[in-house]
């Protein structure tokens, strides 16, 4: 007797996605400070104060560095 076998259906594996590292609040604040010093030569707190004063006309398009620090500003803020 011949037994017909079905080829195993190859299950399509989902691609492995890149891993994400999650930063603690302290790590995020420290990194924000590092980025601010690298890009604008000031601390993260100093940039936030300057932004709130209107030094950059409240315009994230003021420069690429300002845009980066504006988008990342939640990293530099205190959270409850």
């Amino acid at each position, binding site marked *: 007797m011949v037994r017909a076998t079905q080829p195993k259906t190859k299950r399509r594996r*989902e*691609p492995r*996605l*890149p*891993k*994400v*590292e*999650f*930063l603690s*609040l302290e790590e*995020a604040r420290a*990194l924000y400070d*590092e*980025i601010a010093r*690298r890009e604008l030569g000031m601390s993260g707190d100093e940039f936030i104060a300057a932004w709130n004063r209107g030094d950059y006309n*409240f*315009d*994230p*398009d003021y420069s*690429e560095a300002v*845009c*980066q620090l*504006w*988008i*990342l500003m*939640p*990293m530099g*803020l205190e*959270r*409850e």
Partner: protein
Amino acid sequence: MVSATGHRPSPLPWDLLLNRGAAVNLRGGLLRTTLHLEQRYTFAEDPAASARERWRVEIAAYRYTLSEQETKRELFAFHWHPGEEQIAMPHVHPGSRILSEQALAGRHVPTGPIAVPDLLRFLIAELGVRPERADWQRVIARIGEFYGAWQVAGTCEAS
């Protein structure tokens, strides 16, 4: 390396950034380029949805900037930073490097919302950047499945 700052609902948004905010050198391509990538995101709850689909990620702002490796001059800067006194629509800034007319530098050219899969496809398929993975198209398609309908007026949603 992708870094993110939060994975729970919060009154303040969270941030996602590539290479800890430093430029990433891209391999291959028409030009030797670097990429900056940052996003701001929040978590939105849909109480009527099932437990599995109750929370979704909403992109609240983004900046993707492509620059020349040697000179650091910007080629394209895709921005979306809605706010009270700011340009609300997603837009691209053509860098001075590629403009012959300096008067156009800094202008806000409107675009639709740009998702990370769109950006990656542009870099690889259009600019010839060499992907690290041979299955990049599947990876991008898989990531794209997480993005739902984008709403420009409010926030961009990633389901």
